[in-house]
């Protein structure tokens, strides 16, 4: 069947040919694959350890600006190889972002289901917590928690996991309530299925596409949050390194050695851009009702 025969959309969206992905999406997928590969193979492909010093080549510029192949992206004040640090930073930042996204999605969805299942007081408590989350900019909340609980990597990931939980909770609650009214959930309940089974096997698959789209929207936000906090010196702590802390460190050498911060900054931008573009595209594909 040709695409022309399909009433693609009444709103007038052009129907892209089905098999060919848009150029932007192909680029985004390629970039994300590159990032994932880098993160997985960090130990293999990094030319140096990320803490290794090379004191004879401090602040050496990258190739193209008079640098040597010894340090392809240059070195920092202590002679640490920028490329190696970049590779390990990508791994750290992606690990944190994946962990936090999953925590947020699981937590938010569970609370949303609880609210939809029990209604009444439970629902009011969840909604009050949602209001609370929405009333404080997350950065402020994170700053308070981080400084006062001290900073360790598991805590940092858990904290970022709280970002956007209220969005999943809202979506999951709303969709679960409407699913309950649609009959299929009532039908399996009549058949004697447990709440676990109803929500896990029947409701969840039906709302999964909406949740996945929300995850692709939250993921870049978490990368931005992590890098922002690390940039302020309140996120990932040395000797560990993340994209944000590299930029924060490189800021001191902005005039003398801008390459220290330019390469991690470019990676942050390209990665968040790719995930956002992918998320927008997925949303148009999977869920035209979720417009934002």
């Amino acid at each position, binding site marked *: 069947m040709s695409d022309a025969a399909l009433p693609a959309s*009444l*709103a*007038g*969206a*052009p129907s892209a040919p089905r098999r060919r992905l848009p150029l932007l999406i192909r680029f985004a997928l390629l970039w994300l694959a590159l990032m994932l590969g880098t993160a997985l193979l960090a130990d293999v492909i990094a030319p140096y350890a990320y803490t290794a010093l090379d004191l004879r080549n401090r602040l050496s510029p990258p190739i193209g600006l008079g640098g040597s192949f010894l340090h392809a992206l240059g070195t920092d004040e202590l002679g640490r190889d920028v490329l190696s640090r970049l590779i390990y930073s990508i791994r750290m930042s992606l690990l944190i972002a994946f962990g936090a996204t999953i925590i947020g999605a699981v937590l938010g969805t569970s609370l949303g289901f609880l609210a939809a299942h029990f209604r009444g007081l439970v*629902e*009011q408590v969840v*909604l*009050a*917590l949602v*209001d*609370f989350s*929405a*009333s*404080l*900019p997350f*950065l*402020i*909340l994170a*700053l*308070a*928690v*981080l*400084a*006062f*609980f*001290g900073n360790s990597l598991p805590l940092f990931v858990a904290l970022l996991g709280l970002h956007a939980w209220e969005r999943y909770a809202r979506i999951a609650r709303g969709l679960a309530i409407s699913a309950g009214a649609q009959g299929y959930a009532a039908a399996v309940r009549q058949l004697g299925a447990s709440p676990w089974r109803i929500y896990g096997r029947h409701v969840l698959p039906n709302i999964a596409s909406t949740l996945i789209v929300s995850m692709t929207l939250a993921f*870049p936000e978490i990368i*931005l949050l992590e*890098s*922002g906090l690390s*940039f*302020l*010196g*309140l996120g990932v702590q040395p000797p560990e390194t993340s994209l*944000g802390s590299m*930029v*924060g460190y490189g*800021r001191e050498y*902005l*005039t003398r050695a*801008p390459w220290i*911060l330019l390469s991690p*900054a470019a990676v*942050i*931008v390209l990665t*968040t*851009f790719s995930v*956002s*573009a992918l998320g*927008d595209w997925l949303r148009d594909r999977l869920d035209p009702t979720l*417009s*934002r």
Partner: protein
Amino acid sequence: MLRFLATRLLRAAVTVVLVVTFAFVVLRLSGDPAQIIMGADAPPEAVEAFRRAWGLDDPIWMQYLRYFGAIIGGDLGRSMRDGRDAIALVAERIPATLALTIPALLIKLCIGIPAGITAALHRNSPIDRAVMVLAVAGFTVPSFVLGLLLVLVFAVQLGWLPSGGQESWRHAVLPILTLGIGGAAVLARFTRSAMLEVLGQPYIRTASAKGVPWRAVVWGHALPNAAIPTVTIIGFMVGSLIAGAVVVESVFSWPGVGRLLVVAVANRDLAVVQCVLLLVAGTMVTANLVVDLLYGALDPRLRSQARGA
């Protein structure tokens, strides 16, 4: 309408109580402030005296009640660092922050909304594509990267503007631009999707079909309806006038509330952090409340029905 108002007020109050409780729990139970302020090797008697002076040796519920009472009385304690009144300390930073965030808000509104509307009205045209690419780029470039790039170009390379500090209006240009560009992108994206959703509604088609000129359809039917969701995000932007510049103030060494917060957090200065938290929550809750009231004014449907939670 009255019931709608009452529900919203109640929810706002509950939210404020939750924020206060949160501040108390996080800031008090997370560690021993006395030990941290005094240092690990302080003599035990000194730590004990400090605890007594700040009431840190009372049962926790008593501390909580006292804390609540003090906040209602407008007393947020003194900075544990230099003993100055925390509210005064925060209040004197507010003008500096507003000097950045209010002009930035104007930039966001003046660029973001027209760009979003234009893009939606010319959907899939080159203008639309350009606006969307810029909008996504503006959203994905973190403010500290944008700020540092602006410094690199306009301060380091061209030498037109200073890179940090607060001596003259010229020092404010780069931070305002950094805040404004990012926010304008978010607003443009949001306005465009709100507008597109409205343009796809049947009443727009009806209006066009019965011969209303397109200009009148846009001004009379599309824009008022698209304004409703857009007001929400503008309300959020107004609510974050105080808290929205934490990172940018740090990039440009601008002595506003955000810088104060970052320094206070690093020093574990409980009173100051609490004060900023409550101030930010208060502004956000107020802004949300105003948005809800505006909703009532903009959307006649809400006036007639009491909205369920």
